[in-house]
């Protein structure tokens, strides 16, 4: 388990939309973190060795200022992104998702008194109950990766709203793709 001591500020909770394009590449070497199928077939764990971090004192605060020391800025930017997106009818994590969630896990591992709620959602196509289950599986996929990366299970809560809380109303892939998501809420 990494020892990431940092002063790190948590941004205000918001429903920020991820900027999938234009995200800086994370300066991290990741070895052997393999998540295959979100239906939970094979999961193997490894370690991530971040580069470019400095060791700071071990206190963390929930202040509003960003700290430029502690977690590197790329990780910080990722942690400011609170939404993970999914493909149609899928709860599989893309490599981009994994990178994002890893940053969040890293933050959680550095902020021991912070808990996280993972809210799973689905787009409006198909039946409501199946979408409720799909949202649940998406939240669980994110949670499972966090667990693998060392976050304690009693700090993670998952909930699904299926298609009942869309951020984008309307039909068409533009709207649907924004609704197929897991929202990461800190508390």
């Amino acid at each position, binding site marked *: 388990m990494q020892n990431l001591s940092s002063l790190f500020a948590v941004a205000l909770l918001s429903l920020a939309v991820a900027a999938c394009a234009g995200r800086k590449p994370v300066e991290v070497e990741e070895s052997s973190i393999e998540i295959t199928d979100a239906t*939970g077939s094979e999961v193997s764990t490894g370690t991530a060795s971040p580069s470019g971090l400095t060791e700071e004192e071990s206190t963390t605060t929930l202040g509003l200022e960003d700290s430029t020391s502690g977690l590197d800025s790329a990780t910080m930017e990722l942690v400011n992104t609170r939404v993970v997106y999914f493909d149609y009818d899928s709860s599989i994590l893309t490599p981009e998702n994994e990178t994002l969630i890893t940053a969040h896990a890293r933050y959680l591992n550095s902020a021991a008194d912070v808990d996280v709620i993972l809210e799973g959602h689905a787009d409006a196509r198909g*039946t*409501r109950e*199946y979408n*409720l*289950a799909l949202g*649940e599986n998406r939240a*669980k996929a994110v949670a499972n990766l966090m667990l693998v990366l060392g976050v304690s299970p009693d700090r993670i809560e998952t909930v*699904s709203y299926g298609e009942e809380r869309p951020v984008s109303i309307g039909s068409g892939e533009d709207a649907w793709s924004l609704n197929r998501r897991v929202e990461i809420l800190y508390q």
Partner: protein
Amino acid sequence: MICRTRKNRIAVWTISLFAVLCSYSVTSHAVFTIEVKRGTEAKIPISIAPFSIEHILQDGLQLSDIIETDLNGSGRFDVIPRTDHLSQPHELKSVDFKDWRLINSEALVIGRVINIGNGLFEVRFRLLDVYREKQLVGQKFRVPAGKIRKVAHQISDIIYQKLTGTPGAFDTRIAYVVVQEGASGIEHLLQVSDADGWNPTTILNSTEPILSPTWSPDGNQIAYVSFESGRSTVFVQDVWTGQRRLITEFRGLNSAPAWSPDARKLALTLSKDGNPEIYIFDMETSGLQRVTNHDAIDTEPAWSPDSKFLLFTSGRSGGAQIYRISVSGGPAQRLTFQGEYNANASYSPDGRLLSLITNQGNGYKVGIYSFQDQSVRELTSTSHDESPSFAPNGDVIVYATQRANRTGLATVSVDGQVQQVLKLQGGSIREPAWSPFTRKL
């Protein structure tokens, strides 16, 4: 423009359902019949002569309008337009059967409504066989004004049973969810109304979503999913008293309740053991029995009429498909192989068919699966349908269908011939569930 069923016969539309919808109005309750001519299933031509009436119903409709809408929507009848009638009898002695043979009507309904004082009305009707020139049924009812709509539906039921042999399902109810803008934000309402959408009563008012209402076999209770605590939980509520019982509130999902035919169990979807699976909850002991065991999504359980099997939707083969499993667990048998998505299946009352939502490349439509053919056929002309529910006689299906950014309710006859749109009002109406037959006291 508010459309009303003043016309006895709406012109046959051959274009898409959505193109002819009128604007919404909170106070209007319009029912449109859109005929989709498919197949050559013979319908019984019948005439409903306007009842002599001394009481106009509040909405301006007459009993004969209600009976006409009922019979047309079933897909089994072809109600001849009032404008074609050659005479207007109210009593048997005034009937000239030739007038009705001339317009090719096989059956004729005549009637009277008489104000007998003290707020009571006597409704009399006769169903006549035009070719054999004899009465098939005659009956009278004595009711207060507020029950005249119900009497109209009961008359429709009697006509339906007499001429088709199948019990009518017109004097029944539906439950459904309304989502609308309220005074202090979005409201979610669980409502119960007549099967044609009239006389709605709100039985639950929440600021959070309500899903999957489903009637107990005796029609006295409704099970549903409520998000009132911030996540999905299952409740059972008495329709008459409002009394509620919390069924499950485990971690994760508590959803998709389904009553067993003897009402002693509820099948449910729970994810407390890791991922969404089917369980059976014992209403008496509160005990839980696990049915499925697979790491894919397993949800939307539905009981077979003989209580031996559960249908459910599973993602285990890569996308949503319908499976069947013994209630005691064991191997699951896949039923649907057509289309990329098949979900939300339930048995017809006779156990021979399933209603479901199917996507075979043309959008999400109400479909019928036949155990005999082992195939799915699409039923509706729309492409964003949800939540199909059989009428208790198995002849019609009610469902929700999306237009623009709202959903509304519609019915389709099981042969796919007739679709009717119900309940146009401001707000989104979804998750319909058809009640069992109403117990006659």
